[in-house]
Structures are given as structure tokens and as C-alpha cells.
């Protein structure tokens, strides 16, 4: 990513990387996507209609966290290398979490006390 800045004479600095940076913070993290994928089919909600998103937010790729304008475009996306790479990554082991970090540091599982009555 990164668009062209027309008024830059210095060749090195001609490309703006700000668009890439914006998307960096807007995309979902790997662990969030992984959790969503492993929640199971039944628990997933129907996609809400959102007019701000491309295609009213109806054509969504869960793995890549992207919205598409139509079914055709989405299916085209499913064939891309980037998507397949992502698919493979999500098939693998769960992403690193804080719990993993603590276990690696030689801590036991957290002690949350007895389960309270569920309301």
C-alpha cells in the first residue's frame, strides 16, 4: 500500500505510507480472528446491514477481516494468495496470548477461586 505524493521531488520520500498505517490499526488482531473462527458456526451472528461498509457489510471475509462489494468480488478474493496464506495460518496453532507468556514464565494456571452462582 501507500499512495503517490505528487509534490515530492526527493525520490525516496515520494510515497506516502500513511494509508498503510491507518489500516494497521483498523484490522482485527490475529488472536481475535482466531477466536471468532473457532467459536463455531451456530454462535456466529448474522451480518448486520451497515450502509457505511462496502456492499452494505454483507460480503465479509472472516479470515482477512475485509468487506467486499459483491459476492463475485469476495469469491475472487478467496482465490488470492494472500487469503490462502491467511487460511493456512488460521488452520495452525492458536496465536500467542498473555496466558501463554505466563505459562512460559513458569507460572501455573490462574486461580480464579470457586465458581459463583450464575445468574
Amino acid at each position: 500500500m501507500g499512495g503517490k505524493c505528487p509534490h515530492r521531488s526527493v525520490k525516496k520520500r515520494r510515497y506516502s505510507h500513511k494509508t498503510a498505517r491507518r489500516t494497521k490499526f483498523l484490522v482485527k488482531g490475529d488472536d481475535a480472528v482466531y477466536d471468532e473462527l473457532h467459536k463455531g458456526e451456530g454462535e456466529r451472528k448474522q451480518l448486520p446491514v451497515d450502509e457505511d461498509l462496502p456492499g452494505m457489510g454483507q460480503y465479509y471475509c472472516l479470515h482477512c477481516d475485509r468487506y467486499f462489494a459483491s459476492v463475485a468480488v469476495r469469491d475472487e478474493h478467496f482465490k488470492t494468495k494472500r487469503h490462502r496464506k491467511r487460511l493456512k495460518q488460521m488452520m495452525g496453532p492458536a496465536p500467542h496470548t498473555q496466558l501463554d507468556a505466563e505459562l512460559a514464565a513458569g507460572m501455573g494456571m490462574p486461580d480464579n477461586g470457586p465458581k459463583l452462582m450464575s445468574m
Partner: protein
Amino acid sequence: MRLEKCWFCSSTIYPGHGIQFVRNDAKIFRFCRSKCHKNFKMKRNPRKVKWTKAYRRLHGKDMTQDATFEFERKRNRPERYDRNVTENTLKAIKKIDKVRVDREARHHAKRMKGKKAQLQREAAKELEQSIHMVKAPAALQQEPSLTLPKLKVKVSQQQTEDNRMEE
């Protein structure tokens, strides 16, 4: 006061150290130093970075299963203060820590011992397979064709070395 662990390298973060990042889904990521924070921003996987605890655990470099790991844990329940319990705990911490350090040292020594038996076996096999290349010294003396003729070469390096010493 709680001593947290670094998300990336699993080291202990003491109060007033490191930085924490709260993602927009309210997940907290704590980092012990800027090195770990930078590595996180580069989206590196701690399981693939060799200096992290996660890597070392996963690849059998560190001790993984031990009873001493059960003592330190996040306790998310309030405990009524008791002077005696606190005193005993403080005593136990020292003892348990010593046990753990000793066991870790033993694990490391065991890991570093190397595969002596395997190397010995391989060496013995090589010797047996290529013993024909080795000639007995008596055989060499009898047949001069087996040894290379000695050549006499004039050495003129002595002078240059002396010059260098003078400088």
C-alpha cells in the same frame, strides 16, 4: 502490587517499568522494554523468536514440567491478611526458589552433556570401515614408495620477521 509478565518475552515487569498497550477490544498487552514492544509492533511471533521464553519452552531448551511451577500463579481472589500465613509464605518463597533454580541447573547440565555415546559409536564405525587407509609404521619403513619424499626448501622468512620486530 502485582508483578506482571511481559507479553513477548515472559520476563517479570516490576512497577514503573515497561509500557502497556490496550487494543481497541480492551485487551491489554504489557511489555517489559522497548525491545519487546518493537517486536510486537513488527507483528513477530514470540514462538519463533529465539530469545523469548515461549521459544525456549517450545523447543525443549528450558525445563517444562515441574511441581515448582504450580506455586507462582495469578490469584484472582481476595485473601484476608494473616500475619502468620504471610510469614510462612515469605519463608517458603526462598526455599521453593532455591529448589527451582537447582532443578533448572540440573536440567541445563543434562541438556549440555552432549551425545557422547553416539559420537563414540560413530567413531568406532568409521575406524572399522577405513582401517585400510592406516598403514602400520613398520610397513612404511620397509616400503619407501608409500611415503612422500622429503623436500628441502630454503627458508627466507627469517629476515623479514626480524625487520618487523625492529619496527
